[in-house]
């Protein structure tokens, strides 16, 4: 650990107060602290003491210029703060107790099926095992979920272990059920597949919804349901298609296409919760898969998915027979 000059630390603390006065009440700021600079590309901590302003979204390039032109007072300026600054892109949420009760879907399942907790071995979190698919070339059995659940990093390599339950649900190395095979982020699709090991069998079934009968294109007005690790069975209606959005991947903004927008049904109720990423949206009357859930909004209550035909074709997989 590097030694910090006490005078530098005092100066940093004074600058921290200034940064807080200027920016702490900006809604895009999630935290302000004093710490070592974090190298953006590699995520490595350097020896340079900085005031770190953590922001939920960090516009770059042309987007930053547009932001700065419209909101000059919200630009975090090193000269105004009077100390080296590091702008860190990060969002934070309350952390659940490691020793509190876990929901049912956070348990160990045998056989494996859609709607239960998984994660990769690197990330201390949990998402949802989407469902069972078959590699079009090799015929291997695979699980399909969101890229940010199965890989979560541009540095993730094939062979990365997948745990069931996820590590955030106390999953460990002995809970390995699959190995990362490939992903579709290079095509702008937040999806990946992992080949199952022989640890536990996997079946075509969505916990609480039954087997998936096929794959279909999402259309406006379609009634859908999904089985997710956190919100369990939820329903919604597709009210938007052909969505385009940008997400951060490997240090660059990447355009994600084929996004499906899902709203609450007339009866209300949740659409999704954190932990549901990777679950499959099914057309309600047929149980055909139409979307891969990857993001949501709490206020208002919306869900985002990627159109399933594009996911299957990009990853070169087929639905496993029921």
């Amino acid at each position, binding site marked *: 650990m590097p030694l910090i000059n006490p005078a530098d630390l005092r100066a940093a603390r004074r600058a921290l107060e200034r940064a807080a006065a200027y920016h702490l009440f900006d*809604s895009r700021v999630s935290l302000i602290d004093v710490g070592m600079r974090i190298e953006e590309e590699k995520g490595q901590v350097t020896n340079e003491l900085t005031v770190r302003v953590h922001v939920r*979204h960090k*516009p770059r*390039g*042309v*987007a*930053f210029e*547009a*932001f700065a032109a*419209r909101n000059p007072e919200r630009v975090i300026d090193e000269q105004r703060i009077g100390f080296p600054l590091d702008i860190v892109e990060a*969002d934070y*949420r309350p*952390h*659940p107790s490691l020793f509190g009760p876990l929901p049912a879907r956070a348990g160990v399942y045998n056989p494996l099926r859609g709607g239960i907790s998984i*994660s990769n071995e690197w*990330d*201390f*979190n*949990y*998402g949802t095992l989407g469902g069972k698919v078959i590699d079009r070339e090799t015929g291997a059995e695979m699980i399909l979920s*969101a890229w*940010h*659940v199965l890989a*979560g990093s541009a540095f993730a390599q094939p062979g990365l272990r997948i745990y069931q339950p996820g590590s*955030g649900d106390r999953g460990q190395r002995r809970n390995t059920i699959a190995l990362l095979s490939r992903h579709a982020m290079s095509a702008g699709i*937040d999806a990946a597949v992992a080949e199952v090991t022989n640890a536990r069998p996997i079946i075509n079934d969505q916990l609480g919804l039954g087997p998936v009968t096929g794959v279909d294109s999402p*259309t*406006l*007005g379609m009634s859908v349901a999904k089985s997710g*690790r*956190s919100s369990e069975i939820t329903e919604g209606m597709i*009210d*938007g*298609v*052909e*969505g*385009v*959005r*940008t*997400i951060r991947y490997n240090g660059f*903004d990447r*355009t994600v296409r084929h*996004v499906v*927008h899902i*709203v609450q049904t007339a009866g209300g109720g949740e659409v*999704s*919760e*954190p*932990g*549901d*990423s990777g679950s499959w949206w099914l057309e309600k009357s047929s149980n055909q898969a139409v979307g891969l*859930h*990857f*993001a*949501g*909004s709490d206020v*208002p209550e*919306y869900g*985002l998915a990627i159109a399933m035909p594009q996911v299957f074709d990009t990853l070169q997989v087929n639905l496993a027979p029921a």
Partner: protein
Amino acid sequence: MSQPDATFEARARQAHEKLVRQVIDHPEVTLVDIGYDLENRASPKQIVLRVHVRRPTTKSSLGLPDDIDGVPVVLIIGDYQEETGD
């Protein structure tokens, strides 16, 4: 897309691509899609171009027209996060 008029659908898709090019890099924009106008109670199934933004704003502040090639443009509030839990 469920829309009775194929000509309208083709026009909406072209207008959508124009809109994407115009606003997708804006820091307040979270999604651009084709969908129902959620605020239009008189005609809730009217298909429009939708620009989703993190917080309330106006079309003029984003430089958006009221329509593109006759397809209405509306704003929707939606700040989306990946949904892993931890």
